[in-house]
């Protein structure tokens, strides 16, 4: 067999196998969410019953609202803090600048269990914040702000900063320049950060679990607690929704972009 022949046949086959391996669990999850089996682990007959059940399920609804609320607050605070940090680090020269930047970016690369454990000790021993939704939100802001800073900092390197000088030259003071020129120009980067922060916060399990304490439930924590009781169709249903929704929104965004 010639070398090119091998790559022509083997490479696509290999890729297909990898894709199947990655997506099989998800596809099975989606399929079984429509199965009438009570445990959601094998196929019996087609039903939408579990989806109707979810709507009335108070626990799921509460957990979902919690996760969305925490994610929303996190997005707003982390994006603002991250943008301000990026601006300061990019535009001003001071001693320890490089070290500060590395330190702020550190939580992004630290293992979640380390971050979670450290925050748990911090909340319960160092500053005595009760574990609950407040501690979860603070924790999320802590590990999402570096992400916002990273994205905005990257974008700042590609902006023509004489725009700010031009604004000053035309008579705008610092605050007006910031408001009318700097923020609008940084807005795409800020929106990109928000789009990245949302899954980071919404999906987070490990750090959230560490600092949640007793009785506080986000959606990932709810799903995990349900698993303890064994497989249930609720997991399949929620999982399907959480997979399909992002896919739809990405497709929608691409469709809107093409229209432009």
């Amino acid at each position, binding site marked *: 067999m010639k070398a090119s022949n091998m790559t022509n046949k083997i490479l696509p086959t290999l890729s297909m196998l990898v894709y199947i391996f990655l997506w099989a669990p998800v596809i099975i999850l989606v399929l079984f969410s429509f199965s009438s089996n009570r445990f959601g682990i094998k196929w019996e007959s087609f039903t939408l019953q579990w989806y109707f059940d979810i709507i009335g399920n108070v626990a799921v609804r509460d957990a979902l609202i919690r996760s969305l609320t925490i994610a929303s607050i996190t997005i707003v605070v982390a994006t603002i803090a991250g943008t301000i940090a990026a601006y300061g680090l990019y535009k001003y020269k001071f001693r320890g600048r490089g070290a500060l930047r590395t330190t702020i970016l550190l939580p992004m690369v630290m293992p979640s269990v380390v971050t979670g454990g450290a925050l748990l000790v911090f909340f319960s021993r160092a500053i005595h914040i009760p574990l609950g939704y407040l501690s979860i939100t603070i924790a999320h802001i802590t590990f999402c702000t570096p992400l916002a800073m990273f994205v905005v900092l990257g974008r700042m390197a590609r902006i023509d900063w004489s725009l700010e000088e031009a*604004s000053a030259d035309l008579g705008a003071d610092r605050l007006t320049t910031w408001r009318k020129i700097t923020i609008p120009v940084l807005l795409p980067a800020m929106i990109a950060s928000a789009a990245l922060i949302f899954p980071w916060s919404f999906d987070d399990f490990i750090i959230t679990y560490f600092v949640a304490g007793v009785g506080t439930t986000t959606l990932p924590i709810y799903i995990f607690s349900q698993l303890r009781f064994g497989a249930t169709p609720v997991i399949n249903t929620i999982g399907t929704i959480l997979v399909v929704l992002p896919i739809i929104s990405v497709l929608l965004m691409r469709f809107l972009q093409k229209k432009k």
Partner: protein
Amino acid sequence: MENREGIPCVELRNVVKRFPGVTAVDHVSLKVEQGRIFSLLGPSGCGKTTTLRLVAGFETLDEGDVLIDNKVVNDIPAHKRNCSTVFQTLALFPHMTVEENIGYGLERKGVAKDKIKKEVGEVLELMQLGGMEKRRPSQLSGGQRQRVALARSLVLRPKILLLDEPLASLDRKLRKEMQTEIKRIQREVRITFLYVTHDQKEALTISDTIAVMANGRLEQVGTPNEIYETPRTRFIADFMGAINIFLGKVIATGSSQEVQLETADGLKIIAIKNKGIPSEEITGISVHPELIDILPEGTDLEGDNKFRGKIIEMNYQGDFTETRICLNQVDRIITAHLSNEPGQNVRFSLDERVLLCWNRHSSKILIG
């Protein structure tokens, strides 16, 4: 906006600006005349842009004074100075339309909305940008963006317009068109222009006064004619294109201001000097390539400066061919331009032996 006679629009008095490791502006003093185009010309890193930024207020000076309209402005921040800058990158606000860009400065001044619309409309007419109001900068051509940048600054009627190599990113043809445009606009609005460029042809085309800078210092200030015809130093001569430089001392003088200079390697060159310049101060002579004639080796003619040599390089440039000749007499290379015009019936080729000749009036005196 009429200025009192004699008061310069902008003045620099012994200005110094240092950056870590380098003195970017080294004791520069100059006066920019009201209502004219004044150019700062020099190679990259000579301090011309820094000088401009000191006038604009984007840099703070270390020593000396900057005066606008006879008032010291050292401590006045950029957004309060009565000058406007056209940046090299143009810095058009990408998220605003053309009319929002142009109206930005007027908005900051608190001008009423309908007045803004009127002023913007007028300046769009002046810049021949009618119909482009609602476009974004990304939807404009290079030349149109230039004009929007100019309009944005001009609509504020500043005391002085500062231009930092505004045409640097344009192609040759567009550059030439815009140079004419800029001159036309300046004559119409009669605002003082302070123009930074590294292109000596551009400076010659548009300036009323040129200040040549090198290494943070002013080398010479004068009209384009003065800078071109009587460059003071070797650096200026070379920068302006008179790249044939002969350093030496005057060994003889004649009745009508003619001098004979001898170089270290024994070449003797005849030139004409200005009445006001003493011979002792003359350090050399420069000659523009286009003023040197190339003739067949055996040509017999009367002439001031005649040298024989061999052609070692020819670069076709369209209407002329840049030709480099190595002299027989000494180890020196002269650059001359060979005309490619249709009337020219003598052709030369590489390695051919030729006679070079130029008139004493073509030799330009150097004194520094």
